[in-house]
């Protein structure tokens, strides 16, 4: 009997934390440790499946931060702690964690894109000795959509952190406003060799942010992105995520930017 890769397994939800009015972090019991940057196909029987990145890894648990945007992602928000959530995975390649060691890490993340890089930050937060420095650049649509507030407050203590919103409001007075690209120049890059830039966010944001870094002298092969494509299977069969000769679900979602640029939709 061969293995059915499409069959999801139940995982118990430990807790649910509201992050914004459309996003919650679901913590679930987990018996294995995925690579940071990998994703799971999250299943709700009767509703459907969707790919979701890991937004946190601990011993015996995983976090997933899910924004309610459609069918399955909205239905997930009706679950309660103790309920089962169905998963298959982990899928994809994940971030090159080992290659980051001993380097200056710059992370630029927009909106939902903050969740897949959260475990990278947590990892180096707990092991700051493994890198030379870390700069964090976060962009959100508006202040109500800022994710991981408490985490960010904590990260700020150790790392240079810039948060900006596209649209401000009264509670945001005196803070950064504008697109993430406008703040790229504020990041000081002493050594263009020994560094990695990680950019995760909506396709347009990733493109312009990468271009901005390149303008400031960063080589495209020093930039790492996590690509998002329509997915159905997560295992290289359904064809939806194919770009060029690559399957985002298999060969990605994490790509070096010089490689990603060769993938033309």
């Amino acid at each position: 009997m061969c293995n059915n890769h499409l069959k999801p397994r139940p995982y118990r939800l430990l807790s649910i934390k509201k992050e914004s009015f459309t996003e919650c972090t679901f913590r679930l019991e987990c018996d294995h440790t995925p690579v940071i940057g990998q994703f799971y196909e999250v299943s709700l029987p009767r509703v459907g499946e969707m790919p979701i990145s890991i937004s946190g890894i601990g011993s015996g648990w995983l976090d997933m931060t899910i924004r309610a945007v459609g069918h399955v992602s909205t239905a997930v928000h009706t679950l309660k702690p103790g309920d089962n959530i169905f998963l298959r995975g982990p899928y994809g390649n994940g971030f090159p964690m080992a290659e980051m060691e001993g380097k200056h890490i710059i992370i630029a993340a927009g909106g939902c894109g903050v969740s897949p890089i959260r475990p990278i930050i947590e990892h180096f937060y707990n092991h700051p000795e493994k890198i030379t420095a870390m700069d964090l650049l976060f962009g959100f649509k508006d202040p109500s959509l800022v994710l991981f507030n408490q985490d960010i407050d904590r990260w700020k203590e150790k790392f240079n952190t810039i948060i900006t919103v596209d649209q401000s409001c009264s509670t945001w007075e005196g803070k950064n406003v504008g697109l993430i690209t406008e703040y790229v120049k504020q990041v000081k890059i002493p050594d263009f060799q020994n560094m990695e830039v990680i950019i995760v966010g909506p396709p347009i944001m990733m493109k312009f942010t990468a271009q901005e870094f390149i303008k400031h002298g960063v080589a495209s092969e020093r930039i790492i992105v996590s690509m998002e494509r329509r997915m159905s299977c997560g295992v290289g069969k359904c064809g939806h995520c194919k770009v060029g000769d690559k399957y985002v679900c298999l060969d990605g979602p994490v790509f070096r930017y010089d490689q990603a640029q060769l993938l033309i939709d």
Partner: protein
Amino acid sequence: MGKSLSHNEFNVLLGALAKDYNIYAPARFEKQGRFSDTDIIRYRQVSQVEEIVWQAKSTYSPKEVVMPVTQTLFYFTQTEYREPETDTRPCLVFLRACDINGFASLDKIYLENGGTEDIYYKRLREKVKFILIECHTSFDNCFCVSMGANTTDNYSMAVRFGEENIQLELKDEQLAGYLDNIGQGNDFKPQFIQENKIKVNVPSVAEMPDWIYNDQMWKQYDHRCIACGRCNTTCVTCSCYTALDVLYDDNCQVGERRRVWASCHIDGFTDMAGGHGFRKENGARMRFKVFHKIYDFNKRFGKHMCVGCGRCDDNCPEYISYSNCINILNDRLKEGEKASV
């Protein structure tokens, strides 16, 4: 081993085989064509040689045998996923050389890509034995020779249909018993088509240059292609699907997860929640399909996906010729090369 059989003898053979195999062949579906009073030819189970349409190319490909249009993946209740039972009877499929080679493309995706096997495909696929239908002549739009898919030795039996009698070659010892007392022995070997009317020059570039992706050659398809997807649904090598969950109307607690064929030409193929999608222009979809068939797939698996069956050209309602598109592409690349020297 070869044999010559009368049609009656062949029916006796089919009868004997039917005891142990489901036999699939291209058959005529009368008045089921797109236009009234026209027929289509597609695969179904047959029991008589008279049902087998060997004189014409089938409208839809034999992939339907291993890749049903709609396939149930799981039945579920709120708390569990249950796999459906599968028919375990082995199958014999009558098909042509291009289609046999087409299965090899499907195998790459479903049995190799990403190092995992799709068990739904595998369960159906491993039951299949091929019976080669020898092509007497090349049909309209065929270009199997250009794709190197005109020949094969991957079959259990090969058959030359004729009005008078039927010649066959047996390669698979497991089927020998069925032939013991039937027909005249001979040394029949199938012939393969050596030349098609349509010839395609597949570009032999290692890397497609950047500019070709946005070249003006694709623009014409923006308005010519209506994104109907027939070129994908009739193609023997298109393998894409979309999974979805459905609830049974009479009991909202139970339902199934199923998959259905998907097509990269049809709207929505790349759409993500929130409406963002890629390749909005139909010309870009044409380029994506063409590159998949004769470039991307080859880069990944070392074999062209397309086998030159020509069904995409047979069935495009807008008279878009995929084979001609490859030739245009080849010419453009050559011109481009010259221009860049």
